[in-house]
C-alpha cells in the first residue's frame, strides 16, 4: 500500500472519529484459540492517553467521512467543507492487525459516515469485522457502529462478529433531534437498538440450551449523548439515560460535552467552552445510579433539575437528606455505607471486612482511605469525637468547600462570575 496515502487517510478518518467518546475494551472475555491472534480480557486495557487525558484503547476510525446527512452537530455533515477520504476494507484489516501485533491497541472501533444508504454502509462495516475474525483469526475487541436505519438482517449479522454495537442517540430529546438533524428520525435510532437487544436476549436463551450457540455482541450495546447543544437540563439527560439503560439493556451511556465545531445559529456559539465539569457531574450521577443503589428521582427531580457544579451529586443528595445521617460505620449495611459522601465502593468493602475484627475508629478509617474531609460530617464510629452537628446544610456545604480543594476550582469562579 502507498504509505503516504494511508497516512493521510488515517489522519482524516481518525480525526473525524474522535468525537465518539466510547473507548471501552472491557466486558468480554475471549480466549485465544489454537494459537491464533489475540484475546480480550474482561478488564480492558488503555494503551495510551491523549493530551486531553482520554484513554486510547482501540483504533477508532471512520470507514469514510463521506456522508449524505447534514446533522448540525457533526463534523462530517454534508454541508461542511472538509477533506473527505475512504478506506478500503482490506486497509482497515491490515492496520488493525499490524497495530494489534505491536501491542498499540486492544482492537478496532469502526464507525462511518453514511454513503449511498444505511444498509450499504453497514454491510461494509460488517465486511471488515468478518474478515478480521474469519481470515485473520483475530480475537481482539471489535466495536461496530450500528448505522441508524439499518435493516434487521444486517444487524443480526453484525452482532456475530462484533463485541459491541452502538448507536449514538446524540441529542437527548426528540425535539432537539428534529431541530439539529432534520434528515434523521428518532425511530431510525431505535430500530437497530431494539433489534440488538432482542438478539442478545434470544442468543442468551439459546446458549442455555445449546452450549455451542455463537455469542451475539457479548459486550452489549452502548450509546452517546451530546451535552449542552440544545439547552436540555441535567434531569432531561439523566432521565433519557435511565430510559436507555432500562429499555435497551444498555451497557453504557456516554456523555459528551459539546465541542463547538460549527457556526450554525441553532447551536451554541463557536467560542463556547466545552462543559467538561458538567460532563463530569453527569458521569458521577451515572455511577451513583449503576453502582451505588441510588434511584434517579433521588438525584434529579422537579425541585432539583440540574446538578450542582461545585459539589459532587452524592454530597449534594446528602445535604438534602439530613434525616439519613449520621450513619454508624460499625453497624450500617452496605447500601447505607455506599451513600455516605467520601466513601467509595472499594472503601465500603474494606470497612465491612475490617469491622469483623474490631470496631473501627477515625484512624482506621483514615488508613482505609476514605475522604474524611467530607465523610466525617455524616458518620459516627468507635470514638467520642463526633463531627456530626446539627448545622444547616448550607453552612455545612460552606464548611466542606472551605476545607477541601477541588481540581475544578477554576471552573467555579468562571461559572459564578457569569451570574454576578
Amino acid at each position, binding site marked *: 500500500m502507498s504509505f503516504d496515502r494511508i497516512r493521510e487517510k488515517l489522519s482524516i478518518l481518525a480525526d473525524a472519529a474522535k468525537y465518539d467518546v466510547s473507548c471501552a475494551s472491557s466486558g468480554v472475555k475471549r480466549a485465544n484459540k489454537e494459537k491464533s*491472534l489475540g484475546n480480550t480480557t474482561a478488564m480492558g486495557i488503555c494503551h*495510551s492517553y491523549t493530551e*486531553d487525558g482520554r484513554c486510547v484503547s482501540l483504533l477508532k476510525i471512520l470507514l469514510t467521512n463521506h456522508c449524505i446527512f447534514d446533522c448540525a452537530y457533526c463534523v462530517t455533515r454534508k454541508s461542511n467543507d472538509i477533506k473527505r477520504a475512504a478506506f478500503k476494507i482490506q486497509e482497515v484489516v491490515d492496520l488493525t492487525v499490524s497495530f494489534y501485533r505491536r501491542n498499540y491497541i486492544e482492537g478496532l472501533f469502526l464507525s462511518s459516515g453514511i454513503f449511498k444508504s444505511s444498509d450499504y454502509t453497514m454491510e461494509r462495516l460488517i465486511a471488515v469485522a468478518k474478515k478480521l475474525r474469519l481470515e485473520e483469526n483475530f480475537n481482539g475487541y471489535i466495536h461496530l457502529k450500528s448505522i441508524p436505519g439499518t435493516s434487521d438482517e444486517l444487524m443480526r449479522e453484525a452482532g456475530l462478529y462484533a463485541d459491541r454495537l452502538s448507536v449514538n442517540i446524540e441529542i437527548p430529546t426528540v425535539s432537539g433531534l428534529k431541530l439539529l438533524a432534520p434528515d434523521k428520525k428518532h425511530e431510525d435510532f431505535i430500530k437497530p437498538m431494539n433489534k440488538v437487544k432482542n438478539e442478545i436476549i434470544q442468543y442468551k436463551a439459546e446458549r442455555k440450551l445449546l452450549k455451542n450457540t455463537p455469542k451475539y455482541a457479548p459486550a452489549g450495546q452502548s450509546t452517546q449523548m451530546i451535552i449542552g447543544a440544545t439547552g436540555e437540563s441535567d434531569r432531561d439527560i439523566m432521565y433519557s439515560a435511565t430510559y436507555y439503560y432500562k429499555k435497551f439493556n444498555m451497557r453504557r451511556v456516554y456523555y459528551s460535552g459539546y465541542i463547538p465545531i460549527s457556526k450554525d445559529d441553532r447551536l451554541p456559539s463557536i467560542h463556547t467552552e466545552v462543559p467538561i465539569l458538567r460532563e463530569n457531574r453527569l458521569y458521577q450521577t451515572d455511577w451513583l445510579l449503576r453502582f451505588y443503589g441510588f434511584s434517579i428521582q433521588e438525584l434529579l427531580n422537579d425541585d432539583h433539575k440540574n446538578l450542582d457544579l461545585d459539589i459532587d451529586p452524592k454530597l449534594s443528595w446528602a445535604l438534602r437528606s439530613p434525616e439519613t445521617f449520621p450513619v454508624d460505620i460499625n453497624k450500617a449495611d452496605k447500601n447505607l455505607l455506599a451513600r455516605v459522601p467520601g466513601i467509595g465502593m472499594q472503601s465500603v468493602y474494606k470497612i465491612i471486612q475490617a469491622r469483623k*475484627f474490631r470496631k473501627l475508629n477515625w484512624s482506621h478509617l483514615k488508613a482505609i482511605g476514605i475522604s474524611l474531609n467530607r465523610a466525617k460530617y455524616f458518620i459516627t464510629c468507635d470514638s467520642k469525637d463526633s463531627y456530626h452537628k446539627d448545622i444547616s446544610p448550607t453552612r455545612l456545604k460552606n464548611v466542606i468547600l472551605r476545607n477541601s480543594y477541588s481540581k475544578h476550582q477554576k471552573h467555579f469562579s468562571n461559572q459564578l462570575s457569569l451570574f454576578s
Partner: protein
Amino acid sequence: MAPHTILQYDGSFDGFLSCVFMVYEQKIQLPLIQKQSEENNQLFTISEIVHTDKTKAKRVWDGLRKKVPKPQKRAIFKAFLSEIKGVENTLLSYIQNIFDTSQNIGLDYSNKDILKISQVAKMVQREKHRMEAFVRFKKTKDDYYVATVEPDFNVLPLLIRHFKDRYADQKWIIYDIKRGYGICYNLINIEFITVDFFSKLRTTIEKDVYSAQEMDFQKLWKSYYDSVNIKSRKNSKLHIQHLPKRYWKYLIEKNEY
C-alpha cells in the same frame, strides 16, 4: 535487649520462603530478613546465611495455599516483587499472621501489616497492568517482536501469562533494561534470557534490524495518536497522571523521529 537474628538470602522468592521456613523450624524470636547484597550495619546482631532450598520453599508455599484463597497468596508474591527495602519483614509478619490464626476469615484491613501488603501488592499490580498497556513491540527482520521496558517493580514474571495468551502466534521478547533480563516466547514456551546487546546505554533495538515496514507502522501509529487529540479539551495534569513521564521514553507516540 535481645539481639536480632539477621537471615541473609540470595534475593530469589524461593530464598525468601526458605527464610520463612527457617524462622519456624528454629523458632527464631527476632528475625530480620535481608538480601545478601544489602549492607548490614547493625551492631548487636547475629547473622546467618540461608541457602535457598526449593523443597522447604515449596512446603511454605503449599502451607499457605491451604490457608488462604488464591488472590491473597498471589498478593504475597506481588508484594515480594516490589523489591521495596524491608518488605520481606512485613511479608514475614503477614505470613505469621496467616499461620497463627486458626481459621481464615478474610482480611483484617485494620492490621497495619495486612493493609501495607495489600497496598504494596496493589502498587505492583498497577505496574503490571501498565506494562501490559505500555509495551511497544518493534518487529525485527527475523520476525521477532521486541520491546524494552524499565518498570518500577520487577513485574516481568507477572506478565508472562498475559502476553503468552495474547500473542500466541508470533515470536516476542520483553526485556527489562533496569534489571538486565527478559522473557522470550519462541512459539512454544517462555524462557528467561539475558542479552549482552542491551544495556542502560543501549535501551532499544537499532533501526537497521527493523523489518521492512516497521518504521512505517511506527509513523502511522504516531500520526494516529496525534489526530485523536482534541485540542479544546487539553488537560495536561490528567494526561500526566495517566501517562507518567518516566514511561515516555519507550512509547513510540511520545517520541519524535
